[in-house]
């Protein structure tokens, strides 16, 4: 609690946090439903997680331990800047260890380590509307959500199969929540989709520019859309991690020289570091 005399706790004023919490509660009450909220200007550009930051600010308490990941990594620009932002404005403890964190703000990944009850996972969402690129009219997509007209979502998957022979959508893969709302899980890889459902942690989604919040309460049923003859498949690069040797985690492909050399490493740095600390080694480990 270093600078709370200068700033209000966690940057936002209490009335704003109250407004955001109301939106979060409504989102939790109607899983997958996009709740409009009065998104504030934040001291960072749109696309850098303004929605996630506002949601985090609204749920953080002084006792929380905060972790930020960007594409799974704790040490990239977005993650570092948001973590230090809350260190300064909320004075909360931070960590890079998934198991120790109580609030985790994430961009484009779900941590490899299974989440537990009591944790909150906050997603940064660029485009909350799964139907956006199929039906550009917001008035129409809202009507489609309210009347549960989701045939169009399958048209997208149909187009994928007809063009590529399989469902080529590999991130932001649409899901159906509790048999009702079709939801965009933010641009997480479809490898992470199975972790959305039946998750013990609270999952909150904040889209700052689009001014929408939606949520998945713990243990919610989340089903990835598919066809009977082309079932959903959680895919990843078919390699083990070059550093820790894990063959079950989601991998980033890293170009290492000009001669076509490349290596695959865990995108979740905390998971990879923990495995290396336990003595696991991959083929590219120094």
């Amino acid at each position, binding site marked *: 609690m270093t600078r709370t005399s200068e700033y209000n706790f966690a940057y936002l004023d209490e009335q704003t946090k109250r407004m955001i919490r109301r939106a979060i509660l409504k989102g939790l009450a109607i899983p997958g439903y996009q709740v409009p909220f009065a998104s504030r200007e934040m001291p960072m550009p749109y696309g850098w997680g303004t929605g996630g930051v506002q949601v985090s600010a609204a749920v953080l308490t002084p006792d929380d331990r905060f972790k930020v990941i960007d594409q799974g990594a704790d040490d990239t620009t977005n993650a570092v800047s948001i973590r230090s932002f809350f260190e300064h404005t909320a004075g909360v403890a931070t960590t890079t260890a998934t198991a120790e964190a109580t609030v985790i703000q994430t961009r484009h990944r779900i941590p490899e380590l299974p989440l537990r009850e009591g944790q909150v996972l906050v997603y940064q969402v660029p485009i909350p509307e799964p139907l956006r690129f199929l039906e550009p009219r917001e008035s129409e997509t809202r009507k489609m959500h309210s*009347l549960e*007209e989701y*045939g*169009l979502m*399958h*048209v997208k998957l*149909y*187009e994928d*199969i*007809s*063009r590529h022979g399989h469902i080529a959508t590999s991130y932001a893969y649409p899901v159906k929540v509790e048999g009702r709302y079709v939801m965009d899980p933010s641009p997480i890889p479809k490898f992470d989709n199975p972790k959305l459902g039946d998750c013990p942690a609270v999952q909150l989604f904040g889209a700052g520019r689009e001014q929408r919040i939606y949520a998945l309460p713990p243990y919610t049923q989340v089903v990835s859309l*598919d*066809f*009977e*003859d*082309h079932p959903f498949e959680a895919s990843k690069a078919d390699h083990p991690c070059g550093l820790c040797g894990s063959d079950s985690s989601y991998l980033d492909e890293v170009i290492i020289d000009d001669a076509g050399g490349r290596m695959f490493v865990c995108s979740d740095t905390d998971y990879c570091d923990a495995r290396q600390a336990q003595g696991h080694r991959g083929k590219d480990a120094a």
Partner: protein
Amino acid sequence: MTPLLSVQGVSKRYGTHIGCADVSFDLWPGEVMGIVGESGSGKSTLLNCMAGHLVPDTGAVVFDTRADGPRDTVTMSEPERRMLSRTDWAFVHQHARDGLRMGVSAGGNVGERLMAVGARHYGDIRDKATDWLARVEIDAARIDDRPSTFSGGMQQRLQIARNLVTGPRLIFMDEPTGGLDVSVQARLLDLLRGLVRDMGLSAIIVTHDLAVVRLLADRLMVMKSGHVVEAGLTDQVLDDPQHAYTQLLVSSVLQV
């Protein structure tokens, strides 16, 4: 026998201007009704009121639904009405691009209505799309092409395939041959006539082309300034027009 569609005293005003006034008629199963009139005579307004795109100010549009028998589509709930327009109704727009998704392949366009009513088997959807493309004389090899690469006549035929794939019982057509050259028109009309007869469809065709109604329609309504001025069997109305406006209309047809 109950009429498939019963229009009862439908009126629609745009402010002080009359869209259509006090139109009533019954459409029987398997019947094709033509509505002709000059531009601005209210025929498209009437069609949109019947198809649920516009809400009429007064009157009822009673449709004989499969499940519950005759229901007033004006007062039924929106989900029910939208369900009808996805299953039992079809709407063919004058401009194919209004009725198609131009960014989605031909197969996807045809499959959309199937997926909207719950089809979730890719192979089945694709087989059905292929079958329907063949029925409207589009080469099956073009199933993955976008409609924007199709000619105007092909787009119109694709729109028809997309509408008929769920086996509707009533099809609304707004100037289906407008903007097509005459040889393409003739092919389209031939195709439509075949489909309507084979599937036992009922249809309401709005057009200003008397040749279209002569070929397709069993019965004819002539509209002027929002009012129906003459109605009857197509041949009867066209061969022996009674109302002055109908006489004008019939005599205005260019002879080759």
